[in-house]
């Protein structure tokens, strides 16, 4: 493909002059037209990608770097920044709420992504069977994706209400008493994870399904000939074949989990800013908002943001290493 494209972009001005079917045309009157044409082919790709990169430079890269600079300053909204060196980071290091937020982000991330992706994998496998009403199932499991964080959370807050919520009523029927879904730490984190999982499982299942459908059928035929059971086929044919897609979803979900904000904020209602009365589900993102917009210390908030960046880079590096190792091991 690459070669044919190159042939076009370099060869077309010449071919327009020599092409036999254009011989009736007067042809380019002078060199400037051919030059313009060549300039057009050379420059136009950059013109097409310019809007994206300009937008990214202005609203992505610049603020990203500027946040890094702010993290070494003391600055409130509307005041000039004063350089304080690494003080903001030192203060974070000594702050137990920061460590709590870091831990919560990690635990919430794990319990909201791992079950979600495993269930999505299972659902995709089921949807890959020959089914009646296949289209209906697909749209149905994707429906939660159409709801917003805010709307979904407000509804789940009702379902998870410890006193009158439906979930505690159901649990009561099987003998599990009164779970404190908001005031105690793990139940609250599980409830928040349930919102995330509900919204995203179907979406990931459809992505897996598409990858599964691209797996060549002969792989399964060969496995079946070797006497592999359905489960065995799933483990040794399906999973390795869609490995790249699995990595893709892991990366996307991890990034999403690192920035969890709306769900815990709205789950907490009026105490949402602090992530619950006892900060029991305060994420890094909430902590940053608390520092920046409730307390007004933008410098400290910037330091929290850059800690998030460092964490993401770390996760990215680990995932890259795992991916490489995995590919080597499986020879993919």
């Amino acid at each position: 493909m690459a070669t044919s494209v190159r042939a076009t972009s370099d060869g077309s001005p010449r071919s327009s002059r020599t092409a036999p079917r254009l011989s009736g045309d007067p042809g380019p009157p002078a060199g400037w037209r051919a030059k313009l044409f060549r300039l057009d082919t050379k420059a136009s790709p950059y013109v097409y990608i310019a809007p994206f990169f300009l937008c990214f430079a202005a609203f992505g890269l610049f603020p990203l770097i500027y946040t890094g600079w702010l993290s070494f300053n003391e600055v409130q909204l509307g005041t000039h920044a004063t350089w304080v060196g690494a003080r903001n980071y030192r203060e974070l290091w000594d702050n137990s709420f920061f460590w709590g937020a870091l831990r919560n982000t990690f635990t919430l991330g794990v319990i909201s992504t791992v079950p979600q992706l495993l269930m999505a994998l299972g659902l995709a496998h089921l949807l890959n069977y020959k089914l009646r009403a296949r289209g209906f199932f697909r749209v149905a499991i994707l429906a939660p994706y159409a709801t917003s964080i805010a709307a979904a959370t407000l509804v789940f807050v009702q379902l998870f209400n410890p006193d009158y919520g439906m979930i505690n009523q159901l649990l009561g029927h099987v003998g599990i008493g009164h779970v404190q879904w908001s005031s105690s730490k793990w139940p609250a984190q599980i409830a928040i994870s349930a919102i995330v999982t509900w919204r995203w499982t179907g979406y990931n299942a459809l992505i897996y399904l598409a990858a599964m459908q691209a797996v060549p059928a002969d792989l399964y035929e060969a496995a079946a000939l070797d006497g592999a059971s359905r489960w065995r086929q799933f483990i040794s044919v399906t999973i390795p074949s869609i490995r790249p897609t699995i990595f893709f979803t892991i990366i996307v979900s991890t990034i999403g989990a690192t920035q969890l904000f709306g769900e815990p904020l709205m789950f907490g209602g009026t105490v949402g800013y602090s992530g619950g009365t006892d900060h029991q589900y305060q994420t890094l993102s909430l902590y940053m908002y608390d520092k920046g917009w409730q307390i007004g210390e933008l410098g400290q908030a910037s330091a929290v943001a850059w800690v998030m960046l460092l964490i993401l880079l770390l996760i990215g590096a680990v995932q890259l290493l795992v991916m490489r190792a995995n590919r080597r091991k499986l020879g993919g």
Partner: protein
Amino acid sequence: MADITQPIAGTAPRRSDPATKRRRLRAGGAGKQQNGGPIAYAFLILATLLSLFPLYWTVVAASRTDTELVTPPTPLLPGSHLIDNLKIVWDQVDMTKALINSTIVAGCVALSTVLFATLAGFAFAKLQFRGRNALLTVVVTTMTIPPQLTVIPLYQIVSNIGWVGHIQSVILPSLVAAFGVFFMRQFLSEALPVELIEAARVDGAHSLRIIWHVVFPIARPAMAVLGMLVFVQSWNDFFWPFIALNQQNPTVQVALQGLGSGDHTINHAVVVCGALVATLPLLLVFAVLGKQIVGGITAGAVKS
């Protein structure tokens, strides 16, 4: 992160002839020949119920009174107070303004993202230029930058020029998204034959004509899907609108937040009713165009 494109590309069929591909898709896959057993149906029905029940219950709770809602057993059938609750929603927050704002924001963001993403996606898919692969890697990498890393300076700028509480502060930073560029690139590298561009060039068409007469017509279905996806995303966006706007001039999501934690006494049925108002427009879109959206999501993630 740079590797994201390659593994995805690796999953796709090598041949890009659409007919072959469709045949392969139909033939391929674990269970395509195997019929789903009763257990498969049981699990799928369970998943469907779990997915749809909270949506159904939103309608139930939105049409009940606060007292009915907080008195167990929780109601499971719709009540008769939907209109009353809607009235209170409109009393407590400026929902009309919020709906208009959200429509404007999501509409502008979707239109401009589709336009710019198609241009950039076309360049990355079909044009040869220096630094193409490196720049594409940059595009993909930018998808991993969370908004938390940019909102502080953006907020400073927005408040310096007096745009806090104005919707342009929400529209401008989202004019084009990396996801869209990648999505259109994936689509166009399969769907747009190089010969068509070559032929247009031979006929002396300059690049704008090629865009208008060759690229746009072929990209139209993908542009429609991308437009819907971006509209949904933008409509549901919360973090930056929540920071940049306020209850005087909110988007729907910001208004919902106000409804759930505002100064007024919280009426739970009314809060859920607000959630219903915010979700209904998108659910209607889903009901009509669900199939296309399903196709679009899977295409964006997997096709090469």
